């Protein structure tokens, strides 16, 4: 049960969150201009590193905000992302 720091609500248990995979994958500005390979990569290919991964979580049972954190996929050690480029408004 990971302890995840929601930037808004504070430390909460993993069960309150949903995982969103790699962070900062932009929706292509003009999808129609991408070839099938590039679009396929956008749809399906995500980073899968052994080590640090900047990833997204959403606090589904709490404030429902998306945010990113950096986690080591080998140890699960987590640190909040600095600064949060997106997912804020």
């Amino acid at each position, binding site marked *: 049960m990971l302890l995840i720091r929601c930037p808004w609500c504070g430390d909460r248990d993993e069960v309150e969150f949903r995982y969103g995979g790699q962070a900062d994958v932009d929706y292509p500005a003009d999808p129609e201009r991408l070839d099938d390979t590039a679009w*396929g990569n956008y749809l399906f290919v995500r980073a899968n590193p052994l080590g640090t*991964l900047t990833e997204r979580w959403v606090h589904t049972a709490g404030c429902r905000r998306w945010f990113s954190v950096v986690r080591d996929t*080998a140890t699960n050690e987590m640190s909040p992302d600095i600064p949060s480029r997106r997912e804020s408004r």
Partner: protein
Amino acid sequence: MAADSNTSHEPGRLWRNPEPKSSYDVVIVGAGGHGLATAYYLARNHGVTDVAVLERGWLAGGNMARNTTIIRSNYLLDPSAALYDHALRLWEELAEELDYEFHFSQCGVLNLAHTEQEVRDARRRAFANELNGVDAEWLTPEEIAEVCPILDTSPRLRYPVLGATYQPRGGVAKHDLVAWALARECDAMGVDFIQNCEVTGFTTSGDRVTGVRTSRGTIGAGGVGLAAAGRTSLLTDTLGISLPLQSHPLQAMATEILEPVHPCVVMSNHVHVYTSQAHKGELVLGAGIDAYNGYAQRGSVHVIENQLAAAVELFPIFGRAHLLRTWAGTVDVTPDASPIIGPTPYENLYVNCGWGTGGFKATPGAGWVFAHTIATGAPHPLNEPYGMERFTTGALIDEHGAAAVAH
């Protein structure tokens, strides 16, 4: 131990522990079930015996050591049914062929349906199975109770069992013994197993791979087959090949040894658990992956709590069995819950990965087609649909219905 003989093995001998040669015709990365089966069929079907299987840890110590050993072939889609049933037919002969008792038991597999939509989906799968020549029956709750009396089929349940598909030919096999049986035969045919040998990258020349870099030095290779499960994309990343793989922890658990109570395999997507009793007597239980990516071979405890709640709901008799041990593997999951088996942009590099939560059952079948792909340079008809280009064209083989729960 000299890498000398491929004569028949001493009694009890499973494998030699040779020093790696400087190069091999074929290098297989990963001595899991798939790597072993690939080496076996390379030798048996294609006469390719100058093969090394490189393993970063101990032989078959990855997911092969951790899976809940469920074998079945009642998949929905044609390519899946063909591939998994090919595997099941091989299982039916493998123990004899390898002359090794690995407790392959066709005790039957029940896939439960708990909602009307699950009933539709399950029957759709059963109908498809029939037309594909895969044994499948649709059972009512009363019939289920006959197959598995300890299962609570009463309407009392929060999500009562409305029916189940039943594959009598499905069952379990003792995973470790399967690996040793394959390893022994490979070893006898001259295949080298190099353990504690982690592949860290490749040497290339143009669009060919010429060898692998390992923790024990560079080893030349005429062809390379990747069968590294959860760590596959780490290797392809080094070549700039992006695979749609995500590696997740998948947990399982066992109880103490108990007298036989559980006659078959039971799987439930809806309440998310699957159970069987191993030949030794322990109950073996599993469920779905942990949500996040991870290589730690451990997961979160709420996943286990949820699946044990489901298990005790379905099997009230399990309440006082004891949780003895929990563990986890690292499974590589694809977007369509089907594997990737085939060529890569490098002409002599092949991948077999993405088996996610359910590749044990495919072990011989996957080895068969992957060996064919490596030996001939072209996919076997059975793995033709499983190339990585499907994620570009959109020709996915979406087995989420059949594979949503790990198994």
